């Protein structure tokens, strides 16, 4: 069997939705960690916390952030390949055509995820360690 010949438009659209869901699900864990850090920082808990607790917080935030970033980045990379396959389809629906044109948006999203991930971690470090 020729590689790629068995996937039609519907299969590709289903995969596209799976990739979207993966990206959204990957954001849940870091969002929960960030909520916890945000609440503790707002209450001023970190000002009286010992160093071990502060570094534990940063470690958990860093690991959760990196893992979420990798997952999202991988999903985007695979979605880029999917978009290329969608573009090769001869007769496709308007929806498939719209998705096939979103290659640039995907690249922008990948850059955004990495950039915003680093920026958020910098803010977390600031909130936890203070001045």
């Amino acid at each position, binding site marked *: 069997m020729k590689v790629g010949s068995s996937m039609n438009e519907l299969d590709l659209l289903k995969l596209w939705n799976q990739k979207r869901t993966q990206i959204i699900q990957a954001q849940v864990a870091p969002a929960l960690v960030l909520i916890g850090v945000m609440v503790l920082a707002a209450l001023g808990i970190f000002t009286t916390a010992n160093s071990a607790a502060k570094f534990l917080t940063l470690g958990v935030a*860093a690991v959760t*952030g990196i893992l979420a*970033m990798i997952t999202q*980045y*991988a999903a985007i*990379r695979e979605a880029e390949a999917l978009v290329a396959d969608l573009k090769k389809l001869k007769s496709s629906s308007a929806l498939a055509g719209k998705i096939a044109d979103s290659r640039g948006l995907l690249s922008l999203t990948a850059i955004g995820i*990495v950039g915003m991930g*680093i920026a958020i971690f910098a803010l977390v*470090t600031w909130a936890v360690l203070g001045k």
Partner: protein
Amino acid sequence: MKIAVAIIAIYAIAALFLVISYERPGKARRKLTGRGGDFES
């Protein structure tokens, strides 16, 4: 403050390293076949 900057820098380097290594994976090792002296040291 210095330690905060160091932690952020380490995180940023780690994130960028992972992304770059994902984008440019190393060359895959050739399969050992026994031909062409694969097994000879």
